[in-house]
């Protein structure tokens, strides 16, 4: 298990990086944390390629808040996002989900942006971005484009990044007051990819009733799947016992596949159980966060 021969560049600036990527076209691949790429290389599932190592672009190692978004730069390691002091208040779901990402040693090197670009349907970060309706900032030597989460994930391990492009940032909408998030997953061993996982978001109105409920699912299809469960819960009180209805709705709407760890039927069942658990957590958080901003902004960029 050793990687094939590789070409390698290590640009010292973003401009250099983009120029290199532009020159290389389809041969160029970005190396950031490498926690998914390097094992694929070692197993020789990935072809020889030209790696463009962006680890010198220290300017991209940021977690900040601006314009109602949490901005995560391409070189921010999972551990840094998790440790960031602004995350718990601005977007608590990030921290909740990051705790399920592999183990600390992987989080110390792996990047949140890389995980999203890698688009593993069993990974937590793509589902979180999809649920929140976040945005991916993609640069080329010639310019910039912003891609919404809904358009970003194309298939298993496929995201909308074209040859010559570099994802420099992902943006997670800040969680408004009166909204809450929850995350629940079942994995075979702690730290493994999820057998099934659910990220949930609930927004309450000023009467403390559920106004909006959404959930995103991992490991149930080729891409993160976002369901609007509002129909099952709209108008329900914040201590709702109607969560099972939302769970039932989720079970109806998703069509997972079986694999060596779980049958499709079990996955579907789990999706229901975890929907309820994640919604319950979201509901509690929404109550705690009050409803001062109610009505003025939706929870995230609603898809």
């Amino acid at each position, binding site marked *: 298990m*050793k990687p094939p021969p590789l070409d390698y560049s290590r640009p010292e600036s973003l401009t250099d990086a983009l120029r290199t990527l532009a020159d290389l076209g389809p041969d160029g691949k970005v190396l950031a944390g490498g926690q998914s790429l390097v094992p694929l290389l070692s197993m020789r599932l990935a072809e020889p390629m030209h790696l463009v190592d962006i680890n010198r672009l220290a300017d991209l190692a940021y977690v900040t808040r601006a314009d109602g978004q949490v901005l995560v730069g391409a070189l921010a390691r999972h551990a840094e996002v998790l440790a960031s002091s602004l995350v718990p208040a601005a977007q608590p779901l990030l921290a909740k989900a990051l705790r399920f990402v592999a183990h600390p040693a992987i989080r110390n090197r792996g990047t949140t942006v890389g995980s999203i670009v890698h688009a593993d349907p069993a990974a937590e970060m793509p589902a979180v971005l999809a649920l929140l309706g976040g945005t991916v900032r993609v640069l080329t030597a010639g310019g910039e484009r912003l891609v919404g989460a809904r358009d970003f994930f194309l298939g298993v391990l496929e995201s909308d990044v074209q040859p010559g492009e570099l994802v420099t940032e992902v943006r997670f909408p800040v969680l408004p007051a009166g909204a809450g998030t929850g995350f629940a997953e*079942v994995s*075979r*061993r*702690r730290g493994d990819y999820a057998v099934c996982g659910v990220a949930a978001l609930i927004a309450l109105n000023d009467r403390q009733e559920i106004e909006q409920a959404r959930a995103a699912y991992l490991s149930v299809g080729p891409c993160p799947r976002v369901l609007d469960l509002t129909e099952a819960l709209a108008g329900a009180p914040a201590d709702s016992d109607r969560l099972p209805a939302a769970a039932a709705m989720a079970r109806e709407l998703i069509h997972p596949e079986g694999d060596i760890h779980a049958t499709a039927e079990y996955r579907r069942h789990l999706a229901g*159980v975890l929907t309820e658990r994640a919604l319950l957590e979201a509901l509690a958080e929404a109550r705690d966060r009050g409803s001062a901003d109610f009505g003025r902004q939706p929870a995230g960029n609603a898809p």
Partner: protein
Amino acid sequence: MSSLFGARVQRVEDDRLLRGSGAYLDDLGEDALAAAFVRSPHAHARITGIDISAALAVDGVVAIYTYRDLPQRLAEPLPLLIPHPALSHGRTPYPLANGEVNHVGEAVAMIVARDRYVAEDAEELIDVSYEPLPAVVGIDSARRAEHLVHADVPGNLAARAAQEHGDTTAAIAAAPHVLELDLHIERSASTPLEGRGVLARWDPQARRLQLWTSTQTSTGVRAAVAAKLGIDLANVDVITPDVGGGFGVKIVHPWPEEVLVPWAARRLLRPVKFTEDRREHFIASAHERAQEHHVTVGYDDDGRILGLDVRFWHDNGAYVPYGLIVPIVTSTQLLGPYKPGAYKVEFDSLYTNTVLVTPYRGAGRPHGCFVMERTIDAIAAERGLDRTLVRERNFIQPEEMPYDQGLIFQDGRPLIYDSGDYPALLAKLKDLIGWDQFPAVRQAAAREGRRLGIGLACYVEGTGVGPYEGGHVIVETSGKVKVATGLTSQGQGHQTVLAQLVADELGVPITDVEVVTGDTRRFGYAVGTFASRTAVMSGSAVTLAARKAREKALRVAAGALEVSADDLVITDGLVHVKGDPDSGIGIGTVAVLSNPLRYAFDEAAKAATQFAGGGDMNRPPVAEGDEPGIEGRAFFSPVRSTFAAGMHAAIVETDPDTAEVTILRYCVVHDCGRLINPQIVEGQIHGGVAQGVGGALYERMAYDETGQLLNASFMDFLMPYVSEVPRRIEIDHLETPSPLNPLGIKGAGEAGVIPGAAVLAAAIEDAEDIPVRSMPLSPSDLFELRRVSHEETA
């Protein structure tokens, strides 16, 4: 004299391992070329062509070999290590595939290159043409035999073997109650953290081969390599470096790589090294465990077994180099601590197009224990009796020891239990887990909506299997004691426990004792490390060897001190008259005196030279029949195996929603006779329990119907992390000494793993009130069991 026997002595191995100064196989041979293998992607195929031309052109490739390059003896199949009369159709692999591959991962070509990176580059360029053949995967497919693994093995049947004690059919026919059960265990594997590895150096001047291999038997590899390469045994050294775990997979020998690497080294006149990678370990080493069992049991109103008939089918994979050891162990050891009245067992050992099967820690016992314990639980359920009560009623009693089960064991000798007190073990276990208090615990939990269950399982384990081991002890003039035994060590702390025994026996500080294992340069006669045999076999042997050295030391010291040897003792390395610890001579000095010298190398040696005075001028310096030096060499060969025993109990919680299983408590009572080092024994139990939990809830080899192993990585083969093992493993010991060896000990290395599947199946069954007949059990499996059970009730 303070005894180290029974003390929690800190391990002597640890210091260097903790500093990163251990020397594992891949840490050696920096100058060696690297070997890699082209392995079959097909479970069953004919090879119609191999094109190596493109690969040969890769810069850094030194040689590429296929079957056609192998000389005569290497071109024959590898040895069938343990023949058995019932093994009518034994088949073993060729070192490199000879025209046909029989499992994914079988070696087809060998590449030797500058380093492993280059070797893998070349591997990609070797073009092998295959003509796929239908694959036989799983026991049912093997039994149906619509396709054959080996064209000349009808019915895919390697062996059918049977044993019976009493008239089982009659006993069952006459029994008031009869139950039938089908029980299944899936594949797992040893999976040590270090894979296999071999390094070879050929010295053309001395015509001598030096081979380092990560093995459980250096003498076995040595004999095999000498035979296969046509080198005199005396010219082959096999050295076992630090071994990063074995658990059985490294007892098989020679692995193809163990003969190919030295062959290439000799041919190329360059050192060559093979370091197995993780994926290769999954598809090219050995698995174990897969068996289907059908049980028919007759019993009375009280749950006493009157007759037990077990028919089972063993999936031995593509080849059987290790013979029938695993199914034989299952067939004999499933009886555990019970006397079943009459007993009949018959098994088929079947070929499949999957990785070959050889013993993995527990070797056939986890399945046997699962079969017997599930059967007893089923009887208890059917009779409405407490599960411990049914066990008690079937136990062999202490006063019945030694107890003859009337069968032939895996060593070809009668299955006679030497010692044990099973009622006492059960009493301890019930106390430890609080068996009688559990109903209240369960109720309390149920009130909170939680689902708890308790289970237990008992086993008896034949340990200390023969035929023999030996030991050598020599006292150096510095007073340091060097000990050698031929079997190997894979982390069990052999150096420590053997040093404890020798230090006790010789009366020297343990810090002065150094033990070497698995180096044929130091000790040439040995069998290997398996079947929990080291403490019993090598422990006894080095004890006897140290005893000889001690006698010699006392005799030489007696001459020098002019006292009777009977009056002398050795304390802290000082040979002195009893009761007078201050005056005497150091054991190093005694070593000097024991070896009359012509030449002096240091101050100590000077005292033993010919002009130093002393000695009787009328006798030869070395008396007739005597030898220079304080040395002892001894062998231990017991009449038959010792039988350790143990019982485990667990309390589990099952999640009503997700079907996840959490182990709340895990208790072990254990009898391995006298404990040399309780800390090490407990460590062995901990590790065994973790593997048992892995085998019960997480680990399986997921083959698809075409023979692809779908989880050949640590991502999908779910070896437990700390988060999956019980938070605390509670242990109590019972010591019933074995009469079969000088130390009264029985083996402990494998015990922890044996009842894992049985005890967790029992506890889950208790929590869920659904019969559990197949392990391992994932949450998805439990969900399916619930669904089926719900449908059946509805």
